[in-house]
């Protein structure tokens, strides 16, 4: 079996920063916060009331009847998937891709929870005869993958990795494997989550996992700041079109970069706490390097998992030092959850997307809200947008999940086309500052 090169040819996203990739990326470069105080009546009285809801309601983009047959997570996935597909220059069920060679892998951490709870409410209040016959295909974990796979006519496979906050890095790793192994030529890979809801705010809150900075919501997500106090729950979706280099070249596709490796590990330490020794996290990065045939000296950037929890952020810094050794000195580390909040099952995908764009545009978004950096981290944390140098660039995106899963995805700028609109990018970058202030 000869290993095939896997490139990224399309990107799609709907996030708290914007309803598409361009707006989201501009928000990241400008250091904009997507977090806010929840205004819903149900949020009153909860200890943690800061969250990051999507900037554009998916129901304003999707057709009415299709939207009412989708859980919120699937609505978000569909918006991002259609953007990625169009961005790749592909038409839905067009003849650019053989359906038998097209697969979908869309992850979620929790799935159709809002449909599950809403349907149960209907049954309790109005009886079994009034529940929707669509409830099961809406709430099941693989609903988004199934729905998007149906829409695109993807016949090579339809998959849903579930690994909490590492879920969508698994999707990307799975897409990489499928193409390398010759099981598909094109894989739409990504993740989605739509669970900003009283139940999650209460239960994550009960775990002491959420930031309680209710009086200063835009500064609540602050990875590596000494006053960080938990993550900010977000919703949204991100998708990447992965394609064999051969297939992409044959159709003259625009290429953002190359996915060159992935590494998995399991902490086997605790259901929710990371192993403070960072053994599993370190192993994931080391395995990704080995898979890619690269060395620590090749890495210029890491988009960290960095959720803004007291323990998690320092453990990851330790793991990064262990994985890279002395080469950690020339690696720019950022935490984009400071701006997007934590998309759970969508986190790996939006952050791999941001990593691909950082290399493509040779610009790393900063980490906002760091007033006082945690001392002795031993990593170079970007607190504002940073340029990357010339030449070959390689970067890692880390995602770690409850349950123990650690997944590192390694991308490079190999095979990258010239950026489509460099002027717009520099304008956005010029508008960026130390930030956190802008709305």
């Amino acid at each position, binding site marked *: 079996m000869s290993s095939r090169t896997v490139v990224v040819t399309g990107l799609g996203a709907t996030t708290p920063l914007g309803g598409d990739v361009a707006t989201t990326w501009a928000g990241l470069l400008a250091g904009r916060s997507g977090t806010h105080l929840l205004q819903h009546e149900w949020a009153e009285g909860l200890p943690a009331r800061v969250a990051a809801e999507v900037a554009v309601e998916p129901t304003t983009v999707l057709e*009415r009847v*299709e939207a009412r047959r989708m859980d919120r997570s699937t609505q978000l996935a569909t918006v991002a998937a259609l953007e990625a597909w169009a961005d790749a220059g592909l038409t839905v069920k067009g003849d650019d891709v053989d359906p038998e060679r097209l697969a979908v892998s869309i992850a979620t951490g929790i799935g159709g929870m809002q449909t599950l709870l*809403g349907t149960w409410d*209907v049954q309790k209040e109005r009886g079994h*005869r*009034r529940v*929707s016959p*669509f409830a099961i295909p809406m709430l099941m974990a693989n609903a988004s993958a199934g729905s998007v796979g149906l829409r695109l006519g993807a016949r090579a496979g339809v998959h849903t990795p579930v690994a909490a906050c590492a879920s969508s890095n698994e999707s990307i790793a799975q897409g990489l494997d499928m193409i390398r192994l010759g099981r598909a030529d094109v894989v739409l890979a990504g993740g989605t989550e739509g669970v900003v809801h009283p139940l999650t705010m209460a239960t994550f809150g009960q775990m002491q996992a959420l930031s309680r900075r209710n009086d200063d919501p835009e500064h609540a997500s602050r990875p590596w700041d000494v006053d960080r106090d938990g993550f900010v729950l977000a919703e949204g979706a991100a998708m990447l079109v992965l394609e064999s280099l051969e297939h992409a070249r044959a159709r003259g596709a625009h290429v953002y970069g190359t996915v060159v490796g992935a590494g998995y590990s399991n902490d086997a330490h605790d259901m929710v706490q990371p192993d403070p020794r960072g053994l599993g996290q370190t192993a994931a990065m080391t395995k990704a390097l080995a898979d890619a045939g690269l060395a620590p000296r090749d890495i210029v950037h890491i988009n960290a998992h960095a959720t803004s929890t007291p323990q998690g952020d320092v453990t990851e810094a330790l793991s990064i030092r262990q994985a890279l050794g002395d080469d950690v000195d020339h690696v720019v580390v950022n935490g984009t959850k400071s701006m997007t909040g934590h998309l759970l099952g969508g986190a790996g995908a939006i952050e791999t997307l941001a990593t691909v764009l950082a290399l493509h545009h040779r610009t790393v978004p900063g980490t906002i809200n760091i007033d006082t950096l945690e001392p002795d981290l031993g990593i170079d944390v970007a607190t504002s947008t940073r340029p990357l140098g010339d030449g070959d660039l390689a970067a890692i995106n880390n995602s770690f999940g409850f349950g123990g899963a650690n997944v590192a995805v390694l991308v490079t700028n190999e095979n990258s086309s010239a950026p489509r609109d460099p002027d717009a990018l520099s304008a956005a970058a010029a508008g960026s500052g130390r930030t956190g202030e802008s709305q």
Partner: protein
Amino acid sequence: MSADTHTLPAEFLTKKMKEGHMATTEEIRGKLAEIVNQVAGVNADDVQLDKSFTDDLDVDSLSMVEIIVAVEDEFDVQVPDEEAKNLRTVGDAVAYIERANA
């Protein structure tokens, strides 16, 4: 959201037709057409008596379940599952509602 029900504009739906005059076949068809549009996105003008729900209007089996439940609510009738199976065309459904309301 799944909790969404099939509410139609109040001025269009007089709940039970028993309170005034008996609804005409065309009135029932019109209200049914609105339900089919709400549930399945079918153009209401296409919902004519001779049309088959599945073959002509492309209404799938799960949507048909939703339509039946909405019909029960809006026309104050009961449609047991055994009866629902026989409602192949729009005309079948309208006739069933007329009989049930008679």
